């Protein structure tokens, strides 16, 4: 199916601010670094940018979860916009990029600046984590009432995705015999790659023994199965493919996207507790292209928790249903020199929780051959970037022609 509209869009530039723990820098400051770098990287001037997209929108969620929103960045960069979108209800964190793809594909904009800013490390560094209901609404004492999704989980101490996703991982282990040794391969692979990424947070080598020595966070997730909060901003430019051809870089054409949401979009009512919304987003992606999973040279798959990367491997058909454990066994297949290099920058587990956008950024780095010491060999031309867990999921297949 080669008339998919997303083929009229391309990634033309990328940018990323300083990434680190407790940087103490203003979120707008980080955002401007990323955005100006992306605009320059594409060979554009800010007057060329006529679209703006972000996830999850300005100052949304707990402190540190997001930075400036659309109006603030439009003002700071004095952009003249024809189209913009910012909000949390999208197909995952990269849903904001896919919205931009749709906008340029139907001619609403020529060049859309997409960005995602987090400053969770600085926000949380000064005290306990904000946003967990027990601290957000009166210490969980008498009179406190949880609301929304938390109404159903907080009374049971299931206060975060670490708990919700751990239940999926346990179910996967129960159904398919998946082991913690296999789960560990996602973390160990990320750490090996992070050692070659100067911007990664955790770069020192990690062994399987180190992994098992770490404290348990939510069974079966130990500390190294959970990503690391950081401060940082990432930006990408989505351009009309016909306008991208004359820019500075070879365009990375959007070959296909996956945005489906089927079944019951819930952490506990989904029909299959060994997968999530990614199942349908992944399947949809392959319905929109003649390419197949075997054509993918690099996979950058969300690992906010290690199990999510395994679930994405299955959702995108890199292995059969329930087979991600044996697929990653020993780590050779997903290594940089393996048949499917995975999370070549270190993922969120070791490179930092840039919340989805880091995977798309790294996919572009690899396709442009600029990975330095971590560059995948063999001139990669096809990459998949995917983000989300639970009821959130979205993915893009990129091709350098």
């Amino acid at each position: 199916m080669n008339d998919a509209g997303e083929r009229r869009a391309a990634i033309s530039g990328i940018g990323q601010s300083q990434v680190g723990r407790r940087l103490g820098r203003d979120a707008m400051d980080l955002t401007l670094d990323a955005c100006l770098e992306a605009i320059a990287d594409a060979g554009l001037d800010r007057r060329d940018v006529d679209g703006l997209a972000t996830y999850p929108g300005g100052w949304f969620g707990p402190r540190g979860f997001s930075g400036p929103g659309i109006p603030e960045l439009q003002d700071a960069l004095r952009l003249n916009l024809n189209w913009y979108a910012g909000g949390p209800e999208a197909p995952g964190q990269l849903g904001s990029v896919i919205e931009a793809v749709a906008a340029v594909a139907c001619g609403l904009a020529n060049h859309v600046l997409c960005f995602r800013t987090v400053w969770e490390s600085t926000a949380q560094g000064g005290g306990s984590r904000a946003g967990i209901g027990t601290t957000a609404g009166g210490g969980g004492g008498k009179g406190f009432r949880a609301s929304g999704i938390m109404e159903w989980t907080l009374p049971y101490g299931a206060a975060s995705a670490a708990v919700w996703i751990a239940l999926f991982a346990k179910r996967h282990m129960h159904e398919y015999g998946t082991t913690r040794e296999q789960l560990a391969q996602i973390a160990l692979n990320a750490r090996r790659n992070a050692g070659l990424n100067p911007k990664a947070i955790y770069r020192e080598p990690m062994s399987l023994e180190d992994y098992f020595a770490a404290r348990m966070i939510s069974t079966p997730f130990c500390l190294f199965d959970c990503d690391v909060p950081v401060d940082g901003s990432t930006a990408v430019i989505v351009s009309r493919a016909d306008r991208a051809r004359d820019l500075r870089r070879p365009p990375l054409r959007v070959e296909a996207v996956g945005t489906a949401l089927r079944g019951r979009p819930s952490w506990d009512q989904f029909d299959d507790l060994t997968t999530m919304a990614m199942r349908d987003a992944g399947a949809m992606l392959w319905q929109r292209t003649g390419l197949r999973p075997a054509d993918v040279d690099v996979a950058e798959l969300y690992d906010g928790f290690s199990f999510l990367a395994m679930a994405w491997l299955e959702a995108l058909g890199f292995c059969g249903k329930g087979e991600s454990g044996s697929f990653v066994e020993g780590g050779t297949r997903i290594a940089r020199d393996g048949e499917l290099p995975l999370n070549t920058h270190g993922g969120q587990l070791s490179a930092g929780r840039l919340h989805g956008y880091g995977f798309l950024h790294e996919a572009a780095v690899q396709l442009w051959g600029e990975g330095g010491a971590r560059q995948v060999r063999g001139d990669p031309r096809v990459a998949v970037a995917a983000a989300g867990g639970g009821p959130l999921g979205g993915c893009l297949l990129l091709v350098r022609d």
Partner: protein
Amino acid sequence: MVAIVELVEQSGLRLTTNLVNCAIDAARIDMPVRVVFEERDDVWIPLFEPDPDGV
């Protein structure tokens, strides 16, 4: 201990809840459980414990 419990009475209807009166090592996926209620302020919270009579 956090668990997801599916009701025998309605297949596919699940509660995120706590498994109580059960050692962590004794908890098993698919083990039969029964509801117990715990009063907190003016709310009765449904929890679940192993059901020795369950099948």
